[in-house]
């Protein structure tokens, strides 16, 4: 696999607010096309018997690293412009509607595995009951199930903690400093309208420094959320056998890619029909 050609770090136009967003958008398109290639690799590995556990493991590692790469790039971009990361232009409206703090909800990973495991389990129930091994996700062992269950409960708790952090941070939008500043600035605007002039540079700086604090808070929360997303993915993969992990990563990639496509189609349809402000990004992926 080639090294990812689009490096998020190259943005220099700090003054241009859309800069970070555009740059990450490009990165995302590029990352998605790599994910498609990984999906092909995973499917190929899944369909052949002539592949060792070590080779499967290496492929899984590569795919997990690719996710890690995504979150590293995202966190670098968030340092520059967290707001852009929280209102992603690279996603469809459909995906955006299901976002939890700028990405997928971590506890979804367990639903994904239960759903995929369930499908594979029922498809080969007779074999399972006869004691035959299916080597897929239908084959989850007692200890795997126990570990996943424990991880799921922990993940939900952490998810709630982060949701809580976000709630508290959102409430600070109306804290005393914000309310006071908004009043002071409103007074200034009214004074200006009366011709009493004199915009205070000091106040402007204060507004900026206050808003910077808000952004920093958001950045920390986004970072925690992304960490939980990646750790959850990695932990789930670690609980599985290499062969099972292949199945899980296939399911994850398929769901992500198809959801992205479906969403973009929906956006395009709405755009064509001239409804509202459907997402206009229909780049080729």
């Amino acid at each position, binding site marked *: 696999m080639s090294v990812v050609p689009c490096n998020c770090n190259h943005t220099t136009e700090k003054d241009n607010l859309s800069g970070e967003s555009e740059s990450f958008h490009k990165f995302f398109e590029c990352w998605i096309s790599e994910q498609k290639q990984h999906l092909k690799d995973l499917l190929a590995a899944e369909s052949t018997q002539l592949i060792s556990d070590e080779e499967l493991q290496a492929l899984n590692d590569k795919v997990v690293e690719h996710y890690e790469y995504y979150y590293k790039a995202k966190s670098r971009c968030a340092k520059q412009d967290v707001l852009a990361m929280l209102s992603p232009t690279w996603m469809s409206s459909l995906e955006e509607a299901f976002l939890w703090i700028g990405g997928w909800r971590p506890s979804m990973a367990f639903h994904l595995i239960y759903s995929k495991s369930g499908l594979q389990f029922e498809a080969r*129930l007779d074999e399972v*009951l006869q004691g035959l091994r299916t080597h897929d996700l239908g084959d989850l062992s007692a200890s795997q*199930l126990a570990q996943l269950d424990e991880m799921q409960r922990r993940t939900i708790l952490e998810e709630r903690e982060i949701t809580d952090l976000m709630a508290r941070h959102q409430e600070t939008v109306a804290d005393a400093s914000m309310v006071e500043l908004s009043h002071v600035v409103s007074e200034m605007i009214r004074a200006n309208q009366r011709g009493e002039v004199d915009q205070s540079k000091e106040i402007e700086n204060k507004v900026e420094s206050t808003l910077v604090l808000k952004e920093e808070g958001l950045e920390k929360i986004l970072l925690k959320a992304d960490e939980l997303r990646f750790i959850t993915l990695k932990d789930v993969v670690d609980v599985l056998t290499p062969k099972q992990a292949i199945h899980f990563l296939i399911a994850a990639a398929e769901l992500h890619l198809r959801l992205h496509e479906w969403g973009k189609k929906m956006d395009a349809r709405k755009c064509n029909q001239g409804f509202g402000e459907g997402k206009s990004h229909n780049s080729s992926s």
Partner: protein
Amino acid sequence: MAGICCGVVGEGDTPAPLEPTTRPSRRRSLDILPLKYIADMAVPPSDGSRKRPKLDLRDRDNVVQNCDESTGHKVVKKEAKVEIHDNISETKNVTVADASEVEDSPKFGVTSVCGRRRDMEDSVSVRPSFTQGFHYFGVFDGHGCSHVATMCKERLHEIVNEEIDSARENLEWKLTMENGFARMDDEVNRRSQSNQTFTCRCELQTPHCDAVGSTAVVAIVTPDKLVVSNCGDSRAVLCRKGVAIPLSSDHKPDRPDELLRVQSKGGRVIYWDGPRVLGVLAMSRAIGDNYLKPYVISEPEVTVTERTEEDECLILASDGLWDVVSNETACGVVRMCLKAQKPPSPPGSPGSDVAADGSDRACSDASILLTKLALARHSSDNVSVVVVDLRRDQRQSSNSN
């Protein structure tokens, strides 16, 4: 949209205007899923065909919901860990007990998972040889919060033990179990009215958390009897010679005798996403739920069944299983596992030897398979399953092999 049901509701005239989910029909079709190995089984009529999707109290109770979302996370975390710890130590104790009393202890397997729910409110209590050659198995499915189910797990076997002790010579199972359940319910209500806090997400809530309860299905296995006491919609099913025999009958508010009982006390069963007592609780008996007394009672129905040579296994489970898996299918799955020479669980999978925890391998395989089947069939609830091997000759045959 809520219809009030005034007469005895038969299957045909069940007004269920709010039955929006597609689960019942899906379940019906999936239950006919061809499981080859049960095709030749005599299939008695299912007892629980009138079950409906249960919307937990918590889904509609803002107070509890808030408690859930905004408070006590760390506490919950602690509790979750303790819970896991408990399970481990419990099974370890079991191992010890097993070793010393191999003669009496039936083999068993336990699985209890959160599943597709965001809260774990099920509890399981397994106490082999909890008294003089009697073995105790209990499944508790909490609603509102987990603390009533947790209390049942921690206390009910002790209380029942005391009741058995005090009855001694004239042990009358029905009375003993009724007393035990009544005392359990008392403890729960006293505790929720005291200022004692719970180590669950109710903490920081008002001390009076009346709107919390739990089902309880308890099986006591004696050398010659199966005593099943049930309160709520968890269930015990006996598999005898390939036939599934329910040993408890779910306390659904639209069960004709339960409906009459609720109404005779002046209560009403209102259809709101299925029949609910006062439009709130989707079962007519439970431990706790003080605010729904006297309509919702904690008195168990007790069945005493003589054990026979043809008994194969006993399955206790929460409605997370029974909502999507029929009694017959469950028995079929367990029979397959008990009969299997080779256990169906993947032997080489990572850490699978950890599962060797004092519980029996074949029974564990059975409980896990049932749990996986429930998850596969989109069970949206916590799933808890206990499988007890009742075969008499199991030790002989395993020795001779």
